[in-house]
């Protein structure tokens, strides 16, 4: 901290007499200070965000307490608010999206990184990055005009006839549903999983592969048993990036989920998500309690993302230790 005072330009009269080295050192200090401020800003923004959400949701927190998380009524007219259907919808759509996107994404990443010729891999990578950059409202339109009719006419009826014995696939199918939202989300997050996983797989050292091949394993065995486990924590990272994206996705989900705050076991039923209800209702929320309840939902989403990310970190640490342990054994 003593060095900080020397870094202030006003500390000396004119710096001409000082040596070049000390000025450079001063420059280092300034750079350090500035970049530190930038880094601290990120933390500060997160803290301010939580404080603001906390501060602006006083009314519902006092009125409903923990009941906010347990009750299922959302009635702006009567001023009665419960978050459970939205939490449920957010988690279910994200789970469906990961269920579809993870195998597809990782499979594609393995092909691109390990099996495809480099030229094919690079070309495809270009399109995948393009997909990742498409605005979500475009995916919403795609959902409304393609996925929803497909869902109503083909996917839902066939799911019902094959898997109708499960409570997951029962009831009338309107096309707007948890499943539709999950599929649209899956389409949106697959590029993330592929792109990041491919990079991670490509960065696995060559000697790992060569060693595996040298002891007589096939190409696929070296990929599946050596390269993929080596890249495991990076692949996990890509999945959690995708999870975060699907939890917070607003526009595309609002367009295809059906926007009905109900908890249904069936994936073919309409539902609602936290991000979607905030986007839908905040602009026209006329009572203070309504506005603040929506803000509290924002806080819930923040916490949900926070908790899931925390769990993800723990999972990565645990699995990578196990991986390392097995490698040693």
């Amino acid at each position, binding site marked *: 901290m003593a060095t900080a005072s020397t870094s202030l330009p006003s500390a000396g009269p004119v710096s001409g007499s000082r040596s070049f080295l000390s000025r450079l050192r001063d420059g280092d200090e300034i750079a350090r200070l500035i970049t530190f401020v930038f880094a601290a800003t990120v933390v500060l923004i997160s803290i301010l965000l939580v404080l603001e959400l906390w501060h602006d949701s006083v009314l519902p927190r006092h009125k409903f307490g923990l009941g906010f998380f347990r009750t299922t009524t*959302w009635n*702006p*007219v*009567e001023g009665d608010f419960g978050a459970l259907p939205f939490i449920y919808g957010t988690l279910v759509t994200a789970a469906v999206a990961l269920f579809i996107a993870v195998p597809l994404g990782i499979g594609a990443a393995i092909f691109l990184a390990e099996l495809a010729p480099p030229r094919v891999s690079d070309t495809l990578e270009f399109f995948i990055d393009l997909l990742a950059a498409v605005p979500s409202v475009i995916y919403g339109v795609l959902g409304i005009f393609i996925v929803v009719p497909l869902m109503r006419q083909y996917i839902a009826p066939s799911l019902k006839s094959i898997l109708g014995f499960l409570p997951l696939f029962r009831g009338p199918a309107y096309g*707007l549903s948890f499943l539709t939202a999950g599929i649209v989300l899956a389409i949106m997050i697959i590029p993330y999983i592929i792109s990041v996983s491919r990079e991670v797989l490509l960065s696995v050292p060559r000697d790992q592969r060569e060693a595996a091949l040298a002891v007589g394993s096939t190409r696929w065995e070296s990929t599946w048993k050596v390269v993929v486990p080596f890249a495991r924590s990076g692949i996990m990272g890509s999945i959690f990036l995708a999870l975060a994206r699907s939890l917070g996705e607003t526009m595309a989900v609002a367009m295809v989920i059906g*926007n*009905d705050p109900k908890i249904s076991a069936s994936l073919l039923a309409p539902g609602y998500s936290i991000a979607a209800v905030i986007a839908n*209702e905040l602009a*026209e929320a*006329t009572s203070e309690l309504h506005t603040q309840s929506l803000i509290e939902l924002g806080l819930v989403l923040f916490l949900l993302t926070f908790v899931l990310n925390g769990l993800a970190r723990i999972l990565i640490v645990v699995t990578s230790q196990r991986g390392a342990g097995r490698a040693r054994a």
Partner: protein
Amino acid sequence: MKRIAGIIVVLLGAAAGVLWADALSINGAGASFPNPIYTKWFDEYHKKNPNIQINYQSIGSGGGIKQVTEGTVDFGASDGPMNDEQLKAYQDKHGSPILHFPTVLGAVVPTYNIPGVDATLNFTGEALAAIYLGKVTKWNDPLIADANKGVKLPSEDIVVVHRADGSGTSYCFTDYLSKVSEEWKTKVGKGTSPNWPVGLGGKGSEGVTGTVKNTPNSIGYVELIYAEANKIPYGNVKNADGVFLKASLASVTAAASGAAKDMPADFRVSITNAKGKAAYPISTFTWLLIPEKFSDSAKRDAIKGFVTWMLGDGQNYTEALSYARLPKEVVAKEKKALAEIQ
């Protein structure tokens, strides 16, 4: 070089000064439903009075009420009148009340998609309430069929579609349902985003229309202006005098003149289910929210000037944009009320 740069800076500054000094800028925010006509009005008014520039942000009625109460804009706009609580909040903060001025009229129409049915269907208020309560679930239910003799309605489940986003359209529609159905009034009530007992939520008018178009045997509701602009077929609704009417600019204006007789002094009135044979029942005013007291007399005069123009020549722009114009009775009352602004 330096001198030239200096001269340019001075000239730019002077030019900006002239622009800023001359145009009085007035800011408003609120309802999105009247945004097209407001934009047209403010534009036309600026052409006639180049020194007055009115800016309008269509952020939603709730936002409009909030911002005018907080004093961040000069006037607000809303599709639903402010309630007593909100009026009191304004009065407490500013020490003087805020006034409502109806500008144009809108209407909400039922739209449906039933394969094999091309006829324009008749809906009673009871039928609409029962459908949206989830009590009538089949299209050939007597409650619907009795009003549509000669139309062969299928025995299919009705798919109910409503707005998912908070909106003045939902407010108007549920306000109407609350008037025609006691059960709706007690179970659901009226609001910009009520707790819908059944149905799918479409985001925005386009979401509702898209869902209805894509879903066989569905019913939804949209603004008349939206249905007209997008050539969406819509049904007739039975009015308070027992006549089945298709919404039109004339029948919506008729609803307002029907209500004009009992118009309260503050214009906070719902004109759904209005009396009169020619009155379309799901009609509504949309309001400008203007403070009674202005600290800036130039702004006050500009706003009063605009409202006077809007009530006169401005009304001629409404029909081209599918808004129904204000009836004469209401215009006369508003002109009187304008004098209250100080």
